[in-house]
């Protein structure tokens, strides 16, 4: 019986040493709506290695999501950039116009948001919503796009995809809706996948399934993945690299092993202590 509680050493993961697909350099700015225009992001610098899973760790207000939204240039309009650039495959995303960005969003960089059921449109079937992405970015016919939607749901292990594509978001549970979001993000075979707290709000057993799915999909295709989370347990299980942020600053970055086994910053040590209550209590 105690076999469940026992922990087994995982196969040692070696962090892929790919070149950087995305480089964020000294990115900073403030919200024009704040009274004192205090900087919200202070010289954020990190890069995402090609083919690796990188975790961005931090609590509420650390700027981890704001930075990720800036990658797609969908940050709130009141955010004013004061410094830095975001290089994707050599081009600065902060300099691109809307038309060029539309060719990148959803096609080359896609994003999965926290609350899947809020991110899906309630009045269209999920099949239609996935097919729309393919028709827009890949110019597929209605028929081919519908087939691609079924294949996408099958890829994320949703049972009975032929029937499920005709259903609406409210007919999906939270975990299944998050699978749909992942299917939608992957359908155009992007080069970079950003997941913003993909399991927050899901139950712990469902979270385990979603994390296993993400790991499987990213490892198989060597897809570069950026996983934004506040949960160090999730980081330990899935990621190659970790970036720790607090109050708009990067405090620490390195391989996941370094950050988890030899955290240099006091804040990382505190976060680790907080997440290890279960094991050490």
């Amino acid at each position, binding site marked *: 019986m105690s076999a469940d509680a026992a922990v087994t*050493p995982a196969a040692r993961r070696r962090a892929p040493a790919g070149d950087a697909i995305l480089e964020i350099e000294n990115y900073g700015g403030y919200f024009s709506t704040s009274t004192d225009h205090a900087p919200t992001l202070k010289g954020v610098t990190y890069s995402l290695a090609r083919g690796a899973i990188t975790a961005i760790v931090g609590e509420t207000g650390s700027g981890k999501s704001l930075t990720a939204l800036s990658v797609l240039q969908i940050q709130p309009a009141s955010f004013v950039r004061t410094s830095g650039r975001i290089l994707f495959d050599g081009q600065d995303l902060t300099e691109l116009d809307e038309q060029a960005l539309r060719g990148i969003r959803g096609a080359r960089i896609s994003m999965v948001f926290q609350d899947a059921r809020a991110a899906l449109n309630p009045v269209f079937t999920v099949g239609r919503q996935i097919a729309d992405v393919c028709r827009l970015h890949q110019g597929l016919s209605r028929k081919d796009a519908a087939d691609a939607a079924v294949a996408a749901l099958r890829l994320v292990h949703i049972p009975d995809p032929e029937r499920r594509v005709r259903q609406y978001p409210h007919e999906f549970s939270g975990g299944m809706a998050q699978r749909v979001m992942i299917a939608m993000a992957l359908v155009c075979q992007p080069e970079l996948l950003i997941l913003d707290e993909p399991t927050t709000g899901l139950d712990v057993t469902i979270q385990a399934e979603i994390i296993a799915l993400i790991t499987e999909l990213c490892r198989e295709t060597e897809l570069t993945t950026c996983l934004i989370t506040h949960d*160090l347990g999730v980081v330990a299980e899935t990621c190659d690299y970790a970036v720790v942020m607090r109050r708009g600053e990067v405090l620490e970055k390195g391989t996941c092993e370094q950050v988890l086994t030899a955290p240099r910053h006091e804040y990382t040590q505190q976060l680790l202590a907080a997440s290890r209550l279960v094991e050490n209590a």
Partner: protein
Amino acid sequence: MNNPILRVHGLRKHFEVGHPRKRLNAIDDVALDLFPGETLAVVGESGSGKSTLARCIVRLIEPSAGEIEIDGRSITRLGSAGLARVYRHIQLVFQDPNSSLNPRMTVRQTIEEPLQLQLKMGRRQRAARSRELVAMVGLTDEHLGRHPHQLSGGQRQRVGIARALATEPRVVILDEPTSSLDVSVRGQILELLQHLQETLNLAYLFITHDLQVVRRVSHRVAVMYLGGIVEQGRTEDVFADPIHPYTRALLSAAPTAQWGVTRQRFRLAGEIPSPIDLPDACRLAGRCPLAESPCHQAKPTLVPVGSHRAVACPPALTLRQSLVG
């Protein structure tokens, strides 16, 4: 052992939903005892009925059947005047302090309201007591004049706790008091709750889905699945040696923040089913690797294991016996 301060027996709540009317069993025959000075955690995933349970115990939701006793006196059939007197002894702290505090009331008004209504205190007494209460939860007099929007999430939850403690209750029901808070703030609030329990000898019924919180604060734990308790026992026993398949799945699903270590997962098939029109069978039977044909025919009841433990799963208990001896 002394007598339980809160005793719940045979509690049921069903809702009639949809057209044609179907029965949703939110709570299905729940029994629990809470003793003075202890924390009993009720843990379960969304839809397990744990929040409905909290609300039924104080009759914010009227239970369909069952008995609720506080300090040996039944409150099940009390009218509103009788209930109002009972609420002095049993208070609630809610999950989201943003929606459970009145945005138009200052902290002082929020805390003084129960002092005036329940304890009929005069103005001067109220002022003294409210200063005492904010100090107790780690705030200062300066916070008394503020409105909820001028406080941080952690400070708001402290106000929620101060309000609950105003009438010197003996039982506090905490419905996910830390789920909307960041990890570092969560630790501070849990510390505060533990300190208050020790100084005031409070009994906590702690509703949560967070296993770390359970492990840290509770003396005993009851695991809920689809409206029923499937396993209960002392926290350290349940965590060290979970017996019910659902408990095993739940505990093994939590990721560990340690490098190079992966838990062996005890996995259940599929997801939690809809609680509408459930058959008379084990609620987990469709997902459980241990399920046998009797599991599909009758709902198992809690069977005592030792003196502090109870588990509702005959196959797991049989398996356990064959392993032990």
